[in-house]
């Protein structure tokens, strides 16, 4: 039996209720944390080597240490989960809101913050209701408010609904949105809200899955967490598997010990490619990531292991595309997404995403020209010069430089498919 940390209550249909949560150890990690000094809690998280689970994979302990030098003012939890094909935070928010709330309180105690926010994307109506309910219950239980469990530590926690904008997952855009403004990412530097965050005050922003790990880490010790996984990728991670697999879903897997092939093929995980077909391409870590191909399937599910192959584990979402799939259509749809979600501040992203989408549209739907294939690469190069990985940045945030990933991957590997679309006057497969 493999270790489960954040999905330990998976077997229970009522995992979101306080009764079930308390019966299965909820708030015990918090009680232990409150018996320790904040510095000792930080030390456990450092020892765990917990990497942020939002997408960038920044060590949570190091992010916190930037704040420990000057008192943190706010803690904000990023539950705006919008990277296409990422649905693990959705699971944690709906199925285990008390684990999330407990994790937030532990983080707030470690950072000595007295007000925290959980930003949840507006489309999670049920999740917003369940977290609101959990917060109400946590106050009644003495886990929030004044003098938590008699420790002298006090915290207010507010759930904040988003209103539909992918860009608000970018942490500075999220803070703008939380301030009641349009979700425009802020100019860097400063690179971290630790310097200038919410209302210009020092702020830590952590992902939902990151803080959901904290109750277990405090209860079992950072060393026990670090004993799972390998190298820099410690503990377990939630992987959201979708596309052409028999059993799409969210799976908690020990990091590095399994490969992409294991995740896709093992009967208790993905159960294989749907219909017994072969893999043509997979997206290894959200649509911002360069694609993997059949020869990459034995790459371990670890942050550095994927980075070594010039892609990223990112948000932990894996999309499988089988041998029958049209790569032009896949690249077009992903680019259409970026075009719709570009906030519009920076010219390379705002204009580039629209032009790329229109060129890909005409290739897919008829009207493509032979020079379009190189035109696409040229446009991509204008957004992320050199088409390197990680990409060069010409824009305020990483949305723009993420756009070329799918296009560059598809053309590099399947150029003849693009050319066939020109010859055929569109896609011969239809949809």
């Amino acid at each position: 039996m493999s270790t489960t940390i954040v999905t330990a209550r998976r077997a229970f249909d009522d995992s979101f209720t306080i009764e079930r949560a308390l019966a299965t150890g909820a708030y015990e990690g918090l009680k232990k944390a409150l018996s320790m000094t904040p510095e000792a809690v930080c030390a456990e998280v450092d020892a765990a080597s917990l990497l942020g689970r939002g997408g960038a994979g920044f060590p949570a302990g190091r992010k916190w240490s930037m704040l420990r030098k000057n008192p943190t003012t706010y803690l904000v939890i990023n539950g705006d989960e919008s990277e296409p094909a990422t649905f693990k935070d959705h699971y944690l928010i709906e199925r285990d809101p008390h684990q999330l709330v407990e994790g937030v309180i532990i983080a707030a105690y470690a950072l000595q913050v007295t007000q925290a926010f959980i930003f949840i994307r507006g489309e999670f109506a049920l999740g917003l209701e369940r977290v609101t309910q959990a917060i109400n219950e946590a106050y009644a239980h003495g886990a929030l408010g004044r003098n938590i469990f008699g420790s002298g530590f006090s915290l207010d926690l507010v759930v904040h609904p988003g209103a539909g904008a992918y860009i608000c997952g970018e942490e500075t855009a999220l803070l703008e949105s939380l301030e009641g403004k349009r979700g425009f990412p802020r100019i860097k530097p400063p690179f971290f809200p630790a310097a200038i965050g919410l209302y210009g005050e020092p702020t830590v922003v952590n992902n939902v899955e990151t803080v959901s790990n904290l109750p277990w880490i405090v209860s079992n010790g950072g060393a026990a967490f670090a004993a799972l996984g390998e190298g820099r990728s410690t503990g377990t991670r939630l992987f959201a598997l979708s596309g052409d697999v028999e059993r799409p879903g969210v799976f908690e897997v020990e990091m590095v010990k399994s490969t992409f092939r294991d995740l896709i093929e093992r009967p208790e995980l993905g159960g294989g490619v749907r219909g017994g077909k072969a893999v043509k391409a997979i997206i290894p870590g959200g649509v911002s990531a360069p694609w993997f191909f059949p020869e990459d399937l034995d790459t371990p599910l670890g942050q550095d292991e994927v980075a070594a192959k010039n892609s990223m584990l990112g948000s932990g979402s894996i999309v499988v595309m089988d041998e029958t799939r049209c790569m032009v259509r896949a690249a077009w749809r992903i680019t259409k997404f970026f075009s719709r979600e570009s906030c519009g501040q920076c010219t390379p992203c705002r204009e580039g995403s629209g032009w790329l989408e229109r060129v890909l549209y005409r290739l897919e739907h008829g009207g493509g020209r032979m020079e379009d294939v190189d035109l696409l690469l040229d446009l991509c190069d204008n957004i992320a010069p050199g088409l390197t990985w990680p990409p060069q940045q010409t824009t305020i945030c990483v949305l723009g430089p993420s756009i070329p990933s799918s296009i560059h991957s598809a053309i590099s590997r399947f150029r003849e498919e693009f050319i066939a679309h020109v010859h055929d006057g569109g896609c011969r497969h239809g949809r």
Partner: protein
Amino acid sequence: MSHFSPALRAKAEATVALYPKKRSALIPLCHLAQGQDGYLTEAAMVEIGELCEVTAAEVRGTATFYDMLHTDPVGKYVVGICTNIACMLAGGDDLLEHAEQRLGCAVGGTTTDGLFTLEETECLADCDIAPCVQVNHRFVRTTTPEALDALLDELAAGGRVDEIPSHGTLIRVERTVGLQVPKDVIAEERAAAGAAQAARMEGSK
């Protein structure tokens, strides 16, 4: 005179009080206003501006950035169908086309009876049950044309009201507690924490 009902006004004021700065309540208040009116009316934006101490133009300017906030009327049920990558692989485009034919309106349009608005959405983060469909931001998990038709029939006949409230009503669970750690106490505690930290730093030298 308040455009919000007395109950909504009280809820809006309680929401503003949860934030260190009033403007932070702008988006939550837009959701509350949509819960009353189905969309953001001119009068609601004026009142939200007053509550958040910004102009009505700033409310509109902010609201129009976000897909879920509507400054024009929408149907009682906003049906969102995802066609992003995972849903595309599961036939999201076909399901969307079916919905257009079934409802007799194009994407972005509203049926003539004002009941349904159809939207093509980006990823809604429910990709294992694809194509993903939401009605008023509730996951309905109708992945086939037949299941979608049955749901639309049920909604048109006035069914499933408990599960799917009219458009705009987002969070039906009310927060039962206001802030328990008042701002002046925060300042005091912060000063004390700062002093304690300074003493520790001094001690560790």
